[in-house]
């Protein structure tokens, strides 16, 4: 049945009224190239342009400069053509330059003959919801940061109370025995005091070092460094501790005279941390240090025959204050800062740390330093 001209006109009028009376949504249409054809009062209210100002202009002007540069307007149109419609959220720009968070539905329009006529575009302002979400996220992040800080403070105080308690009791022993103690006995007490003092100093140093790195204040100075000499020195320094635990500590490659342009102090700290960890977590076998250079990349590896690290923990242990056994109440001295510090320092030197591990068989931490690395920090 043919509809009369009057009923078509009435239907068009109804449709126009529907679109005109919606002021919470911008309802507009675009031609196939993306230029504005129609503009409702909701669009004027939301975006600030009158219909006269905007009709004929390309819709990309509603996008931010970054999104325009990234080709988002074109991508939105082609997605609507490919899939019939596209829906997305993002920042949009009003006439006065202010931004709002928009939910946009873009639909491809076809006439009854199937000819592509352009796009229907409906936009809603979700800025308030976005702000509330962002605030919630920020609050959650702050809460998490506070939780990490509290946990850290609890951990720091726990770790420091050990050597403090030891110092306190040595003093107690000295007080009780000072009149009758033999020289040998005094030496024993003094060496315990020395060890407790050294542990406290090491804990304080590691916290300060990590906080300097976190604050981006680690000073990195480039100079020619004898790689083999540093490796040999660090190994000699830590050998007594390894031997005390019945471990062998060896250098597999002689790299003396191999020079590279890097920060010797940072390199030393990284090597110390890797070897100290290997000693701390191994109870048997050999810890071997390998120095290899190929294609202008130096690889310094510390291999142990310790318990190994399960795959799911291999990323976590590089985070500050994390350690493998944290959750099990088992105790190993230290703050769990060595790997976090080493990773940050290795990145500051233009390199990185690789980890391979077989649970039950051992782990290998490798410091990878490109010869001509750009120094960061």
């Amino acid at each position, binding site marked *: 049945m043919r509809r009369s001209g009057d009923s078509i006109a009435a239907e068009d009028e109804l449709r126009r009224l529907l679109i005109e009376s919606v002021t919470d949504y911008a309802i507009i249409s675009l031609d196939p190239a993306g230029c504005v054809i129609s503009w409702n009062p909701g669009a004027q209210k939301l975006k600030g342009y009158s219909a006269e100002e905007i009709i004929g202009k390309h819709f990309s002007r509603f996008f931010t400069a970054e999104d325009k540069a990234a080709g988002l307007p074109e991508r939105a149109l082609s997605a609507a053509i490919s899939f019939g419609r596209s829906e997305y959220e993002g920042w949009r720009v009003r006439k006065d330059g202010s931004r709002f968070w928009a939910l946009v539905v873009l639909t491809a329009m076809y006439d009854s003959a199937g000819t592509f006529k352009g796009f229907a575009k409906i936009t809603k302002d979700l800025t308030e919801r976005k702000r509330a979400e962002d605030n919630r996220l920020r609050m959650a992040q702050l809460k998490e940061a506070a939780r990490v800080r509290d946990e850290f403070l609890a951990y720091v105080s726990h770790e420091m109370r050990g050597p403090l308690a030891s110092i306190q009791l040595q003093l107690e022993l000295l007080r009780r025995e000072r009149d009758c103690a033999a020289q040998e006995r005094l030496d024993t007490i003094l060496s315990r005091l020395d060890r407790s003092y050294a542990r406290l100093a090491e804990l304080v140093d590691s916290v300060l070092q990590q906080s300097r790195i976190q604050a981006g204040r680690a000073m990195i100075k480039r100079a020619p460094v004898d790689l083999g000499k540093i490796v040999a020195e660090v190994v000699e320094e830590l050998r007594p501790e390894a031997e005390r635990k019945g471990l062998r500590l060896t250098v597999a490659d002689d790299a003396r005279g191999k020079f590279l342009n890097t920060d010797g102090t940072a390199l030393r700290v990284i090597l110390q941390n890797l070897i100290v960890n290997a000693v701390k977590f191994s109870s048997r076998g050999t810890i071997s240090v390998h120095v290899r250079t190929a294609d202008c990349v130096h690889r310094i590896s510390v291999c142990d025959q310790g318990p190994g690290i399960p795959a799911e923990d291999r990323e976590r242990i590089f985070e500050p204050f994390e350690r493998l056994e944290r959750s099990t109440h088992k*105790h190993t001295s230290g703050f769990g800062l060595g790997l976090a510090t080493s990773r940050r320092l290795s990145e500051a030197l233009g390199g990185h740390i690789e980890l391979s591990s077989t649970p039950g068989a051992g782990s290998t931490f490798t410091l990878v330093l490109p010869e001509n690395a750009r120094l960061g920090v």
Partner: protein
Amino acid sequence: MDTILIVEDDDDLRDSILELLQLRGFNVVAAADGQQALDELRAGLTPCLIILDLMLPVVSGWEFRNQQLSDPRLSEIPTVIVSGINNLEIESRRLQATAFVSKPINFDLLFKTVEQNC
């Protein structure tokens, strides 16, 4: 002579508590972790008091206490927890400890607890 079992992984701290208690005339057996302590007890040691650290390698103080409490022969041995953890009082109550002493250790306080139980 009354025997005290001390479970502490810090060698120097363990040795100094041991020596201070010996100076007061006690017999002291030392263990460096929870497993060693359980081995001593299961081998027949019957101390008048256990001085227990919590953060221990191999078998932690928490695990030690769980095993001790589930063994009728060991559960009644008075146990004082000596630790540097923050919520020591709550943890000590949860672990049904006889007493707790926070690190750094006030030795007079620790000794008072010893005297009350041995």
